[in-house]
């Protein structure tokens, strides 16, 4: 989702409350006028939003699951086009929707910032929602410190979730509501962005679900990464095996529900190849966002790694787990005969059946 030239034109703020001791959550307190921000404040707000939702962040594009009358998408479509006065009142049902999505007492209330604006070269409509927890901080006033309690969207705390609907200008005039809009979500703790921990925000509140294309992207991620490791000059077989083992670990064992090119490269690709890898993936139009770790299309490939000599006459198939556990290991070195060729020593921590028979 291209969020270039994001401009915010209207903002209204509603407040959601925590459960009280009796176990009931008071109704939201609605904002009754548009929030007026100066140019500096608008600039800063846009900066905070882009810092978590633009390309290169751990935001995730999602599919729209609920689009009927009364859904947040339905309200968003109305909010994009209504006049300022209507904007204040039409945003209230959205606050109600978030209120009813806070289904356990553990989920705190907070501030809901509803905004509308435009972005990209086509000035496409954008409607966004920020749920921010309220914190406190000290402010210095002369020689005193004053406690400010209604603090939210503070940069260091980063305690917020953002959902953005952007109108697709390429959709035909007769397209359905769900085809005319694209959705993007950022959750501060991205591990849970597509998991249960924050499901209430993207699912119950915004009516979104993980993108169906994620399984395909995960497959592309594996294929493209493999291709880079094999084709990049200077990566020897031993490093290649390490990188493939890293890929396997990242997809199967790394403790996150999502994958992202930069996260993988920062954790598993050596410095000298990292930016080349990042650029390679970008040049193949691989999305630079969070993708749900849907392994349905890669399970078979993940299980087996294949190696071959240059003339493909000798093939070796090894379970990926045997590589990551170092049950099979490779050592590539210069041939001892001084020919300048490379020889590979393969260590298998096991006897090979059939070896005696063939001798």
């Amino acid at each position, binding site marked *: 989702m*291209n969020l270039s030239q994001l401009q915010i034109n209207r903002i209204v703020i509603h407040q959601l409350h925590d459960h009280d001791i009796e176990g009931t959550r008071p109704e939201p307190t609605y904002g009754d006028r548009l929030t007026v921000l100066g140019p500096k404040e608008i600039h800063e707000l846009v900066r905070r939003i882009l810092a978590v939702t633009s390309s*290169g962040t751990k935001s995730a594009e999602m599919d729209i699951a609920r689009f009927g009358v009364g859904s947040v998408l339905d309200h968003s479509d109305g909010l994009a086009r209504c006049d300022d006065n209507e904007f204040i009142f039409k945003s209230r049902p959205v606050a109600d929707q978030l209120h009813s999505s806070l289904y356990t007492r553990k989920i705190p209330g907070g501030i809901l910032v509803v905004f509308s604006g435009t972005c990209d*070269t086509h000035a496409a409509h954008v409607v966004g929602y920020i749920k921010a927890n309220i914190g406190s901080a000290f402010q210095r006033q002369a020689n005193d410190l004053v406690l400010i309690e209604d603090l939210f969207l503070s940069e260091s705390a980063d305690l917020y979730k953002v959902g953005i609907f952007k109108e697709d200008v390429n959709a035909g005039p007769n397209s359905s509501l769900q085809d005319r809009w694209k959705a993007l979500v950022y959750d501060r703790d991205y591990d849970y962005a597509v998991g249960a921990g924050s499901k209430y925000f993207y699912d119950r509140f915004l009516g979104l679900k993980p993108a169906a294309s994620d399984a395909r992207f995960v497959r592309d991620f594996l294929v493209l990464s493999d291709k880079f490791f094999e084709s990049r000059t200077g990566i020897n077989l031993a490093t290649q095996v390490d990188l493939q083992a890293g890929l396997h670990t990242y997809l199967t064992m790394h403790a996150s529900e999502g994958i992202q090119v930069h996260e993988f490269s920062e954790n598993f690709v050596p410095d000298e190849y990292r930016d080349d890898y990042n650029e390679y993936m970008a040049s193949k139009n691989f999305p630079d966002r969070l993708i749900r770790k849907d392994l349905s299309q890669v399970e078979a490939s993940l299980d087996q790694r294949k190696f071959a000599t240059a003339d493909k006459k000798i093939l070796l198939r090894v379970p990926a787990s045997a590589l990551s556990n170092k049950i099979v290991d490779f050592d590539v070195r210069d041939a001892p005969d001084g020919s300048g060729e490379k020889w590979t020593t393969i260590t298998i921590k096991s006897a090979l059946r059939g070896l005696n028979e063939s001798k």
Partner: protein
Amino acid sequence: MNQSEFLAQWNTDKTMFRAWGTEVVDTVRTALRSEHPEISLDVFLRIDPKPRIKEDGSLITKAFYRNKQYSDPYHDIEDKVGVRFVVLLRKDIEVIRSIVATESRWQASEDRNFLEEQAKDPYSFSYSAFHYVVRSSFTHAYNLDGNDVNIIVGTPCEIQIKTLLQHAYSELTHDTIYKPKIQASPDIRRSSAKSMALLEAADDYFSIVQHGIDSEVQKERDVLSTLQSLYSSIIGREGTTNDSDVQIVSAYLHHLPDQWQENLGLLIKDDESIISVIQNVGETYPLVNHPSILLVIYLAKRRRDTAKNYWPFTPTLLEDAIHPFGISV
């Protein structure tokens, strides 16, 4: 010509010599500007070249008391006015020499050529410089401080061309060793030769350093000029280039992949929003008016580690530069 006639003539001619010295400086400056527009004169000429008129006492001493055996001292003394051009490196000397040797306003004769002197006596390390005497080719008027002064044909002016190090050496030694009011001891002469040898070696190292710097600067210029022409061709107007661009290019110079130009071209082709953002947000985000923004965007979109790790200013400035493009590092 006795001493008092000599002085009387000198007092009459002083203004003419001053005017001729000033004209020589102006002529060399003008030629430098037109033949080498890339040179900043204030930087190139390390010491402001001002004509220096010989003091009366020193002129009289030279004419009558230094056993120089002049047949016509007034006319034979050629350094009544002198001009010194001091540059940084030996190769810079050649720039001035070529102007002095070829200028038609005067007839130039080379009096001292330290390269030839060194070739004749390679084991000696002593005073080194180029000295020329330039004589006016024709009688003409020169406007000095608002007054026309007549300069007659053949009026001499001595030109010295030196490096800064050669100049430092001559400032230290000239009065004592070459104009020996006092007798320099063998120790002083030995130390002076050692310091000249050291300066000559330093000059060689300066040249190596300068060559390295020139080649770096050239690489920066090449990248910047690629960005400038790309910017004007895709945006339709010239970008604003200043020191920020130089700093950005310099910071990223050694971290660009070989095929960066090609990749940047492909990126711009793929992502039409880049051009439109640059065209639209210049007032709010001044950095997009600079050609180096193209390099920053390319790196931020494609090579994030490089963009982030080598950015030469504060992280906030980087975020501000790339946010309008909908990206973050």
